[in-house]
């Protein structure tokens, strides 16, 4: 299989006052099409920095980054923008949705900037993307009218809508409770099953177990890289998981009488 992502000796330095923070100190790794990779590591180990470079949101200080075999280091701002727009989808820990803007409009946003006009009917594509993340009934809701999990699904739908080959997600479940996290992971597993390459950053080992490969970073370098042999199935686990209110109400003596007459 061909590699969709390949980095060689990527470094990233931040200059803070007199100090130079070396966030990445030479990252070499490869991701082939269809992989589902979790990136783990201590706080400050450079995970987000790496994701931003891979997502073309930031440029590395040195090193080469090949996306689908082409070196993107020398590209212009506009070409970078087009790569973000057409080939990558990015999901943030803090959702980053446009405020006071409906879920549908948020999801349609990337299509507004698609200079290739590959997609015939932006509105229909946006609705379809929202359906894929299970939010067909929330099209007109604005971010402040959605739960955290729902907002993250909108963000995932937005990352999907341009039919990217790769989705990058920086702690997509970082702000969600465990059940909703598994829920979001099931969305990612579906997408991966449909052939999309996914890289995600997480702190939680059991979330990483839903992927197929775990990379561990420390001090700006990759220090571990192993496949997940026994991938967990999010959908199955979700069914086995009790509802949060069930957990809470089970201890309540009046539970029977209250909820199910």
């Amino acid at each position, binding site marked *: 299989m061909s590699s969709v992502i390949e980095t060689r000796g990527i470094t990233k330095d931040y200059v803070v006052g007199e100090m130079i923070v070396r966030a990445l100190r030479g990252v070499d790794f490869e991701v082939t099409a269809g992989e589902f990779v979790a990136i783990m590591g201590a706080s400050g180990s450079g995970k987000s920095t790496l994701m*931003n470079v891979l*997502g073309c*949101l*930031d*440029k590395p200080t040195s090193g080469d980054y090949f996306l689908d075999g082409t070196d993107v280091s020398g590209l212009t*701002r*506009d070409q970078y*923008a*087009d*790569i*973000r*727009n*057409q080939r990558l989808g*990015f999901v*943030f820990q803090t959702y*980053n*949705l*446009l*405020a*006071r*803007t409906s879920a549908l409009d948020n999801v349609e*946003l*990337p299509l*507004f*900037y*698609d*200079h290739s006009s590959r997609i015939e009917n932006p509105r229909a594509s946006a609705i379809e993307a929202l359906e894929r993340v299970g939010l067909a009934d929330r099209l007109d809701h604005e971010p402040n009218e959605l739960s955290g999990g729902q907002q993250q699904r909108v963000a995932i739908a*937005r990352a999907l809508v*341009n039919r990217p080959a790769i989705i990058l997600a920086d702690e997509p479940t970082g702000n969600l409770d465990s059940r909703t996290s598994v829920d979001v992971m099931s969305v990612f597993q579906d997408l991966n099953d449909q052939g999309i390459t996914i890289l995600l950053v997480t702190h939680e080992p059991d979330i990483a177990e839903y992927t197929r490969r775990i990379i561990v970073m420390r001090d700006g370098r990759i220090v571990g890289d192993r496949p997940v042999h026994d991938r967990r199935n999010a959908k199955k686990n979700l069914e086995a998981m009790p509802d949060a209110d069930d957990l809470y109400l089970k201890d309540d003596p009046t539970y029977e009488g209250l909820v199910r007459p």
Partner: protein
Amino acid sequence: MRRLRRLLRAATRSILKNRMRSLLTSLGVIIGVAAVIVMVGIGAGAQADVEAQISSLGVNSIIIFPERGHSANVSLAAGTQNKLTLDDARRVEEEATLLSGVSPVVRTNAQIVGGSGNWNTHVYGVSPAYLDIRAWKIASGELFTERDVRVKAKVALLGKTIVDELFDGEDPIGEQIRVGKTPFKVIGTLSEKGQSPWGSDYDDVVLVPVTTGLYRLAGGRYISMINVGARSLDESDAAIEEVTEILRNSHRLQPGEEDGFRIYSQADLMETATETQRVMTLLLGAVAAVSLIVGGIGIMNIMLVSVTERTREIGIRLAVGARSSDVLAQFLTESVVLSLIGGAIGTALAYTVTHILNNVVGMTTVVRPSVVFLAFGFAGAIGVFFGYYPARKAALLNPIDALRHE
């Protein structure tokens, strides 16, 4: 075309989504535009008023004064050449070809007594041609004649203010008044002329035959000035040259010697007054410009306050693949639309205010389209600049830096 429609739609959506910010932004433009138009309108109105007033005084009037302060020049025969006499006036009348009328003027101040009281006023000794030169009309009674001038008749014409002060507005014709100690008979009254552009009262005046004024009241040999009328405004300059020549001959001045008199034309005065008014219009305009700038600072504040939110929004747009030029076009469209709306409302407001000033308050305001365009353009430019400039800064950031903006 399709792109423009999309941009306009996105701009309208963004404006409606941020109602408060949009309102405050356009408020700056509204106030700026309205202030400039109204202020300059008031200035231009005052100017038009003065112009109308001055031309009602007789546009072609030319006045020759003796020059003061030359008596120290001993080469002149005892300073007599600095004075004007009735003889000078007569020579001008006889020799000039470009004049519609000539009147010597003797000006004195006197206490007048008559009717129900007394009053201190200006008494002008003039010839009958004076009224035509000054575009002045008789309200009632009649003008004195050349014969009255010859015999130094003790007859007088009263201005409106005198009629009001001494006769409570009653018809004074045939009444006796005393000017100083000399008794006069009132033979006519003058129509109301109002205030001069410099604020003095034209109607506070008594007209008497020039000879009467000179010999019975002023008791001298010299007249105060000669007032002539040019046949037309175009001939005003030529007429001034002609009069200068005649008076130089009359005074037997050699080439190179100074005139000894000074000539003003109403056209010059009008220019001066118009100039003064123009300065005032400029001042009002400056005040208006200040309010425009204050409005601009308001706009800037709003835009800067929202810059964090905007920068993050721009970060999101960049992150999903907007090119910098996409974002710039979008924000430019948005601020242009906002400024246009603000400018249109401001213009409408200005027209309403000037309409009220004209018809309810009774002021004169003149709204010139050029000023409207200028105000519109300037306020629009401020609105666009401050809407666009912070957006531009954000759009040129790395997407990740824009997203992290605090």
